[in-house]
């Protein structure tokens, strides 16, 4: 068994996708780690759907109940931050003003369908801002483990869980690989250090087409 990346390294790899000036929303869970892996001189605007543009790192100071991100975590503010209400926040999200949404995933299909809100085994779930972000962001990156804890592949020919949104995912970053969703299917562009492409395919339900430029992730 090949060891995949830690959650932190998945977040680090996602962080490499972000560029100066981008407006980025980080979903709850693994995605929130992404902000820890950005060069401090790079000005990226993190949007939180509860009404902040330009928040900074997780705060270590006294807890301020009115200064939290969408995961309920206390945050600091970056220079140039602003506050707004939820109607304005989702107008921003749904109107296409978010460059990148990094979302967690339960399943992604080869067509870029995303399932990340409903847990059949729990008989319920929570939608939160996930559907709006999935439909509204210009680019959707899903960060997740390649399989469930018991080895069930999350990258599938089609999702079995109820969808968050159909055909919205652009890039999948897992502990094993980086996969691009293209009109023709899934393109395997990077593998984790020491991980064999065949091993990735063996842990994936959908067929992966290896990129001509397939390479090992630089971390």
């Amino acid at each position, binding site marked *: 068994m090949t060891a995949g990346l830690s959650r932190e390294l998945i977040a680090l790899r996602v962080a490499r996708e972000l560029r100066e000036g981008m407006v980025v929303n980080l979903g709850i869970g693994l995605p929130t780690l992404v902000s820890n892996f950005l060069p401090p001189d790079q000005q990226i605007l993190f949007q*939180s*759907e*509860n*009404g*902040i543009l330009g928040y900074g790192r997780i705060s270590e100071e006294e*807890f*301020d*109940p*009115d*200064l*939290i991100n*969408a*995961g*309920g*975590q*206390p945050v600091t503010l970056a220079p140039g931050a602003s*506050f*707004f*209400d*939820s*109607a304005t926040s*989702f107008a921003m*999200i*749904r109107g296409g003003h978010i460059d990148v949404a990094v979302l967690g995933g339960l399943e992604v299909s080869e067509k870029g369908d995303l399932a990340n809100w*409903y*847990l059949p085994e*729990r*008989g*319920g*779930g*929570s*939608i*939160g*801002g*996930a*559907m*709006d972000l999935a*439909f*509204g962001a210009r680019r959707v990156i899903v960060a997740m483990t390649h399989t469930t804890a018991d080895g069930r592949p999350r990258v599938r020919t089609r999702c079995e869980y*109820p*969808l*968050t*949104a*159909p055909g919205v995912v652009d890039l999948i970053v897992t502990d094993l690989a980086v996969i691009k969703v293209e009109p023709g299917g899934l393109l395997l562009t990077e593998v984790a250090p020491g991980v064999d492409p065949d091993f990735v395919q063996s842990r994936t339900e959908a067929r992966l087409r290896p990129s001509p430029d397939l390479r090992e992730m630089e971390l």
Partner: protein
Amino acid sequence: MIDKVFPTPDEALHDVFDGATIMFGGFVTAGTPTNLILALQRRGTKGITGIANNIGLGDKLDVLCEQRQLAKMIATFAIRASGARQSLFEEQYRRGEVELELVPQGTFVERIRAAGAGIGGFLTRTGLGTLVQEGKQIVNVDGVDYLLEKPLRADFALIKAFKADRLGNLVYRGAGRNFNPAMATAADVVIAEVEHLVETGELDPETIGTPGVYVDRVVQCEPVPVRWYG
């Protein structure tokens, strides 16, 4: 002079009736009208349809489940991914004792805004091709499909702001805005809990987040200390 100030949360809720539809502002710890929620618990109002972004472990709203005051919730967060610990709401939901309508958060707040703005419905792509689509009309505009979403209003809105004047003008702070300004426009009776009260004319007109026209009652309360449950 107009004076909308009530002395206590309990008096501000004097006409909340069994079976009422009630909106609750707040996003987790931010902008949550905790004192009003606790007064509603004391009042013992039953059969409530609650409209709030979140009801979960650690949310003050969960206290309304202690005496089974909620008949239904319309929310965006209610059932957690982890089953290690459950909220009272989750327990009651699993036992079929309370109804739940889950709504995407952007659709949730836009439906509330629509109710307050006289919009009879709006078209969104959020939810297309998902369970959210069920039972809803699809409208095609210029070749693109959209879901038709309808307004959402309430009998009462319990909201929270940082400051108010006696006319009901509200000033918010930080991420405490969230659903409060939209909910203030979409209920028959709007009751605001605030940390600070000033005389009318003392608030800077440039900073008012909810004009007083929307607010029926104001109560000044010490904020209830909250702990982050993340």
